[in-house]
Every structure is written in C-alpha cells, then in structure tokens.
C-alpha cells in the first residue's frame, strides 16, 4: 500500500519560475485520480490554502485527505476573525486531518508565541501539523523544535526532513531523535541512505513517504525510498502505515 503524505492539488502559487513539468499540475480531481491510479497510490494528503477547493477535491476522491494550509497573519476581508478560527472551521471537515505550515514562503518563525493558539488547536483536535523544512531560517528543524518542546502534546511532521542540504537533514534527524512528538516526511530529500539512517535512529514508525507532487515526480520519489535499503516491514511502514497511523488514526483509506 502507498500513502503519499505530501501532495499539492493546485498549480504554482508563489513564484514566476516554472516549478512543474508541463501538464503535470494537479489542478483538477481527475488529474489527481489519474496520478494515483498510474502510480498505485491508495491515499494521499492534499495541502492547500483554499478550503473550498480542498473540500471539492476531497469530495471527489475517496482516498484523498486534506491538510489546511494556514499562516499567522490577518486576512483582510476574511469571514473569520483570525487564522486560528479559520483553521478551526476547516478542521470540522471529516477529511481535513491536519494543518500545513510553510515558514519560508509565509515568512514567520515557527517558535513564535503568535502560533501558540494554533498549536493548542492542533492538540485539542488531535491533528498533526506538517511543516515545510529545508530552508533558512524559519523552515529549519531547530526553531520548530522550540515549538515542539513548548507543546509536547502536539505532533509535528518535518516535511522534506531537511530537504536537500545534508546538514539540515542531519538536523531534522537529530531534533526528532530527542523529541518523540516529531516525525519526518521524505519528499524532495534526495539522499536514499538518509532515509535508512532516520529509520534506524528514530525507529520504524516515525518516517513517512511523501512526494511533494507535482513539484517532484512520485515515480522517482517512490524509487528513492525503495533504494534506501530498508527491510520489507520498514518499507511498508514508511510507504503507508506511518502516515495512516498519524493522520488517519490507523484507519486505511477506503480504496486500499
């Protein structure tokens, strides 16, 4: 079984530079369904700022679940009084099972007290938060660790597990090794052998597969995990079970 914990259902959102292969944008449910069928993906987490569109995707695809992408800033004209209230609203949706934060593109420090309300909400609703990691400064493991220690009942996933900088990957593993409420997700992190190291140091239950599609190619991201040298049980946990346990409380997606 394959559960992809990191998929973006919309086209480019923050850069004029081309970031996806022509035609690979997942801007319609049919395209995502086609990708899942082609790659044998049983379930996935969709990360999106637009709750309405996210809801549309989730209604169409049985194996898709959502992470609501928020940021600590006022939303002029919004029908919600704060980003926390808006997030609380979308977490009422039965298939929105977590929160996404991107300290790099949304320009904030994850250790800031202004996020404490959101972290408290994640504990109250028992939903994990997936962070973008791998870029200076807010998207590094260490400032996220500060928040994780202040909120030990919150569960944080370090998306990309440090991405492509070896020192940041080591930092993600190091920080997770001393904080049991931190988990690692593999998308975009290019080093096969670091996946194995992470599983060996953290145990088989705290590393999960993600592709970051359409920015990265799921076929290559899956191949990367399969080349990591994991045993069969570890591979099964990384490719699906760990994300299902964390985000879906152990209940596999209906298509699986």
């Amino acid at each position, binding site marked *: 079984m394959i559960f992809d914990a990191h998929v973006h259902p919309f086209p480019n959102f923050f850069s004029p530079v*081309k970031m996806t292969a022509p035609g690979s944008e997942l801007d319609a449910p049919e395209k995502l369904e086609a990708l899942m069928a082609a790659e044998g993906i049983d379930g996935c987490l969709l990360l999106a700022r637009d709750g309405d569109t996210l809801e549309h995707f989730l209604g169409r695809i049985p194996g898709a679940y959502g992470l609501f992408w928020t940021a600590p800033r006022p939303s002029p004209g919004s029908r919600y009084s704060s980003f926390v209230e808006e997030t609380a609203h979308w977490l009422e949706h039965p298939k929105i099972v977590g929160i996404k934060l991107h300290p790099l593109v949304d320009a904030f420090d994850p250790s800031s007290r202004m996020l404490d309300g959101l972290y408290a909400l994640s504990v109250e609703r028992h939903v994990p938060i997936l962070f973008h990691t791998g870029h200076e400064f807010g998207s590094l493991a260490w400032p996220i660790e500060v928040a994780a220690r202040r909120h030990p009942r919150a569960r944080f996933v370090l998306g990309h597990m440090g991405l492509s900088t070896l020192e940041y990957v080591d930092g993600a593993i190091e920080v997770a090794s001393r904080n049991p409420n931190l988990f690692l997700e593999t998308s975009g992190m290019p080093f096969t052998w670091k996946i194995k190291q992470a599983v060996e140091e953290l145990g088989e239950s705290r590393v999960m597969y993600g592709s970051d599609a359409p920015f*990265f190619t799921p076929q290559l991201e899956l191949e*990367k995990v399969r080349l990591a040298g994991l045993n069969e049980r570890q591979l099964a946990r990384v490719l699906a079970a760990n994300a299902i346990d964390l985000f879906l409380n152990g209940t596999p997606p209906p298509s699986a």
Partner: protein
Amino acid sequence: MIFDAHVYPISVPGGLQLATPDGIRQLMADEHIDRVLLVAKDADLLLRHIEEIDGAYAMLWTDPRSPGVVDQARSVLEHPKFRGLKLDPALDAFDPDDATVHPLLTLAAEHGVPVSVHCGHPPPSLYALPWMIERAVVRFPQVRFVLAHMGYCVFEYHEGAMVVAERRANVYLEIGGMPHNWRIKEAVGRVGPDRVLHGSAAPWHHPRLALRKARMSDLAPTDLAAVLGESAAAIYLRGDSAG
C-alpha cells in the same frame, strides 16, 4: 554508452561504498556504467583509481587558496586520464571570478580541459550561484565550464543555470543531484543535447535513481544517448578514450 561525469571515490554510512577501486568497479557493473569521471582533492588517490579501473577518468578538485594547487594541477593534467578541474565555490568559500581562481582557469585554457563548477544550493553560498559563475565564464571564454548540478535543488537556480548556458556558448549543464526529470528535457530544448550531460554525484546521490531520472525525461532516443554519455565523452574526452 553511459558516462557518469560526477562520482566521488568515497563511501557514505549505510549507502554506497565507493572508497576503493573494487567499490567503483562494482557500481559500474551493477548500473551498467561504461565510464566514470572521479572527483577528489587527493591526486594520488585519483591516480591509483584511474590506473586500476578501466573506463575511469579523473578530475582534480582544486581549492584556489590551497598552496601549490596550480603546480599540482599542471602536473596531474599531464596524465592522459586526468580530464578536467573541479571547483566548489560553496564548500571552499571563494568567488569563482576571484583573482586567486584565474591561474587555474588559465591553466585549464592552456590544456583545453573543462572546469566543472558546483552550481546551486546546497550548501548555501552565493558563490555557487549560476550568475556568479558567469562572471568567470565571461572572463575566460576559451574555457568550457560545466555547471555541476545545474542549480541543484532550487527551481530559481535551475532557471538561472539555463539562462546562463543559453547566453554563453562555453557553458554546459550537468544534471547530477538535480531532482527533476522534466527539467532535463527543458535544458536539452534550450541549449541542445550536446551541452547537457549526465552525472550522478554518487555516492551522495544514488546512480540508479539518477539514471532513472534521465530515462524518464521524455527525450528522443538520440538526445537521451547524448545526455547519458556522448555529451560527457565529447566534453571531457574529446573523442579520445585515453585507454
């Protein structure tokens, strides 16, 4: 023919073990690689490897601030299997167009060998950005510069590497560690298949994944053959296999 133009003769914990000639030979056999270009600062180590391994060539990694490096580079380039110089402005922390680099680039021009320059984050360094390397490219038009990793893992730097290659005919793009299969086709479309070459940056990156990435790039068969081997052979070997 597969020519991996970016391999380090080292091992990584729990990963590929390439610190010995046997390890590299095993990798070449497992992945059906015909030729490799080995990169290291230790010239003696490189010499041992290229003399023991059929199909192995060497590129000396030069830190321009290292005492005696120009003389060392001049000496090793006399060997027929030393085929270029490597610069890493990020790890060794220098401006690629700094005056300390110019003697090495002059030497490369005299010997007609390419210079491979680490291009892109990581590690974080403005010196490894394609636009910074371009200044040296302009100053030494007779030197062939290979932008290793073609920007690595940052979309903006991929674009920058391709832009620089489009406007400078002496720039080549090497795809090692750059994670996106579709970018390869884009690069070939923008600068031509003879200026895009395969490299894996093994053992940091797994060569099987690197080859899979290239084969998934939707290139025409002739273009794929160029990227997987012919381009690197033309750039580094100039039609001479040197045994």
